[in-house]
């Protein structure tokens, strides 16, 4: 199940990079909740698929083009942690941000998304360490 979840998130990232937001949307449970990064301009939480997609649309509008690069995946039960590098270009200076997203999965859909600036903090929050977490690159 966990490997399936990793594959689902991997696929969602590919869809994001292809600009296929319908596919990104399909990966979200209708009652998904997303909590943004600490200090993010829009505080959230965003509740429901429409609200999360509206937020995603808003953040993508900041750049003409943006891509998400997965650096590593960690699976832990029904949760998938992904360290990502997010590149944006086209309006003002180019931007590269690195953060960790934690996806909680149910029946193939994402029900909860949390974001952490610090990967170690994300692992610690989940009670994991790099040693006992299964890492998939």
């Amino acid at each position: 199940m966990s490997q399936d979840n990793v594959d689902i998130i991997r696929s969602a990232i590919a869809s994001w990079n292809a600009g296929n937001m319908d596919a990104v949307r399909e990966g979200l449970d209708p009652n998904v909740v997303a909590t943004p990064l600490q200090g993010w301009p829009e505080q959230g939480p965003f509740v429901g698929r429409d609200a999360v997609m509206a937020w995603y649309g808003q953040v993508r509008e900041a750049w003409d083009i943006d891509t998400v690069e997965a650096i590593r995946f960690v699976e832990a039960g029904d949760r998938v942690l992904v360290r990502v590098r997010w590149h944006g270009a086209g309006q003002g200076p180019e931007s590269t941000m690195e953060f960790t997203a934690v996806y909680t999965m149910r029946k193939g859909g994402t029900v909860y998304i949390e974001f952490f600036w610090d990967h170690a903090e994300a692992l610690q929050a989940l009670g994991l360490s790099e040693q006992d977490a299964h890492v998939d690159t």
Partner: protein
Amino acid sequence: MSQENVDLLKSGFKAWNAGDMDTVLALYVPEAILRMPDDWPEPGPFVGREAVMRQFEQLRETWAEADAVEAISDFVDSGDRVVVRMIWRGTGHGPVADLEMTSMYTIRKGRIVYDEKFWDHREALEAVGLSE
């Protein structure tokens, strides 16, 4: 830390049964999330401590006389999560009700950030990567 989480929940059950909802409220972070089991009349999710407490109060009003929660399994901790099977008994309106469900709590820095209910205990255990 895990034993602290278990102790926190035990104190929460005790507070619930004593009708001390202020103490129950204090167990949750302000941005807490509550998900009820599949096919629950109010599907939620309930986001924010006040919304969570409103849902709890609404549930408690279902019974006029009393309701109580009792853990009927071990408190199983895994990382930041604790899973426990519970029975919720209520009396006062119509027949006595015994509702059995499993709670999965996600606890950070001594407070509940995510509270999810499952009808099926095995499903909850699998969610945290465990089996019965």
